[in-house]
């Protein structure tokens, strides 16, 4: 037998190896494996070229907005029945540009108990994303095939939560002014990381999820913490889903609860309270995947009970598709539309309470490896009215995942 020697180690200087190395270093488990924790993150560098005024939930007075964001996720498993998540973000506000000088937040923190060895029942408390619809599971920058959210999750309507409109005329007048994004609401505010509890699970081909939160689907991010808004007027949401096979997933969602903030109480008609004005939302979602295609669609109808006005109804839907052109390259497209119903105008007639609109989103994405991705998105939107907001948007996003 001749001498034994190890071969020279291969240099691990390339970026991919560095990330893989980092991935292993950010994981700890106790000797028995009972305690396991992993720190992961997403570093996003985004640039938005805005056709003023900015669309959706972008906040900027300039034609270009640079939005860096670091999201850190601490996933921890305690034995096989308890799981916790903490998500901390460093950015320029929950929505790009809303805090231009920078912000740090705990966006999510939750403790989950899974009493059985399968997924039939999970109980969760904390601050976490809504169970409504099918967009939440792909809302982070790595999973989202596009950069922005669907219209339902970011188009600001003329509904306000901080004060009641003085009259139908005052409410309808909002249609002709640019969105007051600090005061008005979309149907869903992104993933809606409100606080509360949730029960969810999967039984064979069926999924169910219900949550009991402190804030409505449309609520501002600044009220999502339990310290910001209590449960005096809770919001209940739910989704039931059916997966006939691996390709299809269909679901129906609902949400019911008050949407006005305590500051609105003083502006309500005599004898009325916040709990008398609710956001009632129902939705249907479907997703399909096969080979290199993934398709999602959602239709959402929402009613806002508006003080001094009446019921303001809106219907919005989107169809989104992602196709992998090559192992590293994908294309995505999304068609969005939102319609607004009529409300009494106070003069004996009825008028649409906001401008109908449609938007087309197109994106190309390239994954250099499992840790670096770049996306480019172009959006064109049109509102049926004299006022246009963000008719064209060009966005770029570079994501580092670890």
């Amino acid at each position, binding site marked *: *037998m*001749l001498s*034994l*020697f*190890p*071969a*020279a180690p291969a240099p*691990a200087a390339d970026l*991919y190896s560095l990330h893989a190395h980092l991935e292993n270093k950010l*994981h700890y*488990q106790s000797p*028995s*494996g009972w305690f*396991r924790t*992993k720190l*992961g993150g997403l570093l996003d560098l985004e640039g938005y070229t805005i056709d003023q005024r900015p669309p959706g939930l972008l906040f900027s007075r300039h034609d270009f907005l640079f939005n860096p964001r670091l999201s850190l*996720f601490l*996933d*921890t*498993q305690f034995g*096989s029945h308890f799981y916790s*998540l903490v998500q901390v973000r460093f950015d320029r506000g929950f929505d790009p540009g809303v805090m231009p000088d920078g912000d740090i937040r705990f966006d*999510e923190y939750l403790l989950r108990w*899974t009493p059985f*060895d*399968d*997924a039939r029942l*999970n109980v969760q408390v904390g601050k*976490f*994303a809504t*169970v409504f619809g*099918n967009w*939440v*599971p792909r809302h982070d920058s790595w999973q989202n095939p596009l950069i922005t959210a669907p219209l339902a999750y970011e188009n600001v309507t003329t509904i306000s939560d901080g004060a009641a409109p003085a009259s139908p005329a005052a409410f309808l007048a909002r249609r002709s002014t640019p969105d007051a994004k600090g005061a008005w609401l979309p149907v869903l505010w992104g993933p809606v990381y409100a606080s509360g509890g*949730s029960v*969810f*699970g*999967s039984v064979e081909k069926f*999924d169910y*999820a219900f949550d009991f939160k402190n804030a409505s689907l449309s609520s501002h991010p600044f009220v999502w913490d339990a310290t910001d808004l209590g449960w005096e007027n809770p919001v209940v949401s739910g989704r039931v*889903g059916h*997966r006939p*096979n*691996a*390709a299809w*997933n269909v679901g129906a969602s609902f949400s019911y609860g008050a949407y006005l903030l305590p500051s609105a109480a003083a502006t309500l008609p005599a004898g009325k309270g916040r709990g008398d004005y609710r956001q009632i939302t129902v939705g249907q979602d479907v997703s399909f*995947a*096969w*080979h*290199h*295609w*993934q398709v999602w669609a959602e239709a959402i109808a929402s009613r806002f009970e508006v003080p001094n006005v009446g019921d303001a109804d809106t219907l919005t839907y989107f169809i989104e598709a992602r196709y*992998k052109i*090559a*192992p*590293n390259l994908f294309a995505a497209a999304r068609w969005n539309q939102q319609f607004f119903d009529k409300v009494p105008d106070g003069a004996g007639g009825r008028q649409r309470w906001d401008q109908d609109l449609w938007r087309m989103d197109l994106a190309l994405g390239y*994954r*250099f*490896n*499992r840790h670096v991705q770049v996306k480019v998105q172009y959006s064109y939107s049109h509102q049926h009215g004299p006022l246009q907001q963000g008719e064209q948007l060009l966005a770029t996003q570079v994501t580092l995942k670890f």
Partner: protein
Amino acid sequence: MGKFSLRLVWLALLGGVSAGLANDAVIEGTVRLNKPPVAAPPSAQRYQAGSVQPAPPPPSPMAVVYLEGTFPAPATNPPTVRLGQMKLQFETALLPVQKGTLVEFPNTDDVYHNVFSYSKTKRFDLGRYLKDEKPAAQRFDQPGVVNLYCEIHEHMRGVILVLDTPYFTKTDTNGVFRLENLPAGKFTLKAWLNEKTPPYSLPVELAPGAKLRVDLPGQ
């Protein structure tokens, strides 16, 4: 048949016998494996839409032992190999194949998998296939390491080690291996554990019918 022809037949038979003798060397032994992970890292199943299934325990580590040298090019492609996805894992976490091998990736789970690799050795993305469908087989014609992942199940990890030699085997989970039907000659015996660990390497000289015992790494 003349005397000359009879002599040719005799020489061919003799050559055949000696060729057979030259391919009967054996190397067996053990490879010291890395410690198995106690449990998988917590899976990032943060959002409850869709099926939430607990991740299975990670597979035990194994090693690939192979003989490196100069060998005649094979006349035909190696046989097709199967690497399925089963119970939310790859059927085997480490698959050695000879250069040129065609590998099939059947999905035997009721849920989707999406096997892909961004490795320089082989870059592919199978897409999502139902249980009874047959995804396109991939031919691995460059030697090297191919890291496999599932786009849907983050905990799933696999490696295909593409080798430029027909003489290889995989250890069991205790590190025990046996390489058979080896030719006589001077070669390098290697044991590959993973990308982070430099392979153990040992020059060997095999005589026809030799039987070597090797423990890697040696003392």
